[in-house]
């Protein structure tokens, strides 16, 4: 019993230490922003590596996200006897507000968050980060800033594609599988579309991207040990990012969509 309590206490302390560490990294990131011009080239490189190269994956998952939401919506509509010309409305709202930002962010956390942590974690355990510091180069500016900025900008960018592709996926399934015409689906989508929904979705995506970048860099910089440590840090990074995305998503819903 006592040891269980001690274990719980230790976990609690570790959690607070992690939050504090991330807050410190956040402030150092903000502090380095005036030197952004020195990091422009590195940021562009990360935008390509982390963002642009994620595009094929995001496109593939978005096709199926749109397709399954159209199919499931149609199934439920039939069940409750709702008219199928609302299909475009339902799919559009679900995709733009929730599915595209959240699922893209979680897939991005799995691909990019893990990659960032593994790369920086390996640099940490092989003393490459110490080497940077010993040369008088700030690792925050050289490594952290380009990655956080790339995540911050690229998740919303990817979500724009995800929205488009998912709607197309839903449209195709509606036309082929549910027997709703393209005109009906699209007019349902158009009538329900609000610019505000899209903007909210993109703002959320930016916050999610920032979380993925910050958590990925923090876990990488705090990797201990060798290969095992890198593996552990990578897992922790994806878990923390994914859980944080879902928690923040709920907070966004409470703030933006008042019932």
């Amino acid at each position: 019993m006592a040891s269980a309590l001690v274990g719980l206490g230790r976990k609690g302390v570790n959690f607070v230490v992690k939050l504090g560490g991330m807050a410190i990294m956040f402030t150092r990131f903000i502090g380095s922003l005036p030197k952004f011009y020195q990091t422009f080239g590195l940021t562009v490189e990360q935008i390509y590596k982390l963002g642009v190269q994620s595009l094929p994956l995001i496109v593939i998952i978005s096709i199926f996200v749109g397709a399954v939401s159209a199919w499931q919506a149609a199934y439920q509509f039939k069940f409750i006897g709702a008219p199928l010309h609302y299909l475009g409305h339902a799919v559009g709202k679900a995709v733009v507000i929730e599915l595209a930002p959240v699922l893209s962010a979680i897939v991005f956390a799995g691909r990019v968050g893990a990659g960032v942590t593994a790369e920086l974690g390996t640099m940490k355990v092989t003393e490459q980060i110490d080497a940077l510091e010993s040369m008088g180069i700030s690792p925050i500016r050289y490594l952290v800033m380009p990655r956080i900025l790339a995540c911050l900008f690229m998740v919303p960018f990817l979500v724009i594609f995800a929205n488009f592709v998912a709607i197309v996926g839903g449209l195709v399934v509606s036309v082929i599988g549910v027997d709703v015409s393209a005109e009906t689906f699209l007019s349902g989508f158009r009538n329900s579309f609000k610019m505000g929904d899209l903007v909210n979705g993109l703002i959320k995506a930016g916050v999610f991207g920032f979380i993925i970048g910050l958590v990925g860099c923090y876990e990488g910089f705090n990797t201990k040990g060798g290969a095992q440590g890198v593996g552990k840090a990578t897992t922790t990074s994806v878990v923390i990012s994914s859980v944080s995305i879902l928690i923040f998503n709920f907070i966004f819903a409470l703030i933006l969509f008042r019932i």
Partner: protein
Amino acid sequence: MNSPLIKITDLHKSFENQIVLDGVNLEINKGESITIIGQSGCGKSVLLKHIIRLLEPDSGKVFFDGEDLSELNFNQLISVRQRTGMLFQSAALFDSLTVAENVGLSLKEQRHYSKNEIDKIVAEKIDMVGLSYAADKYPSELSGGMRKRAGLARAIADEPEVLLYDEPTTGLDPITADMIDDLIVDLNRILKVTSVSVTHDMKSAFKIASRIVMLYQGKVQFDGTPDEVRKTDNPIVQQFINGNATGPIQVR
């Protein structure tokens, strides 16, 4: 008498209840070539990293050229680090960059040099360590000795006043190790730097040091010239330099 270039006073450092440094006092004068010896895990590398504040002391002070490192702001610390060069144990080359890019990185990031100037300095430093033929290779394509040489070229790229060597010969075959030692002796002479190296390789220590400091149980156990080290009757030092498993040093 000039004040020491590096002064360490009553330095304490622990990691998770394990005391590593327990009150180290050390003064390093300009132009000296100091070698810190001691068992693996006795805190030699930890001590070295404190000299450029890669680690923060639990208590005690480190002064660099009269300045208390703990009181420096970020930019002042960077200028101290730019006056030093460090060779890491595993060389710590950036694996996404070629040898030449590794060597030129600190110059490029300072933004004071044109690309031509950087190329010229990089070629010169790589030539000094005899690695010109491998300038465009990536670290993963290099042998251990080549990596150390590339790490050395990177450490001297910015014309440092102080060179820190963390186990320069560990993991190398005896011939390559001796070559690295020769290189260090040459560089110290040509560049007129103050050097601090950490090693448990006694052959290397005797070759490169003008003064040898032995760390034992978190404190400075012995401090003297290589000759004094050979002649001392201090049983701890004798056991270490002769490499005996039995003696006052308990192997943990």
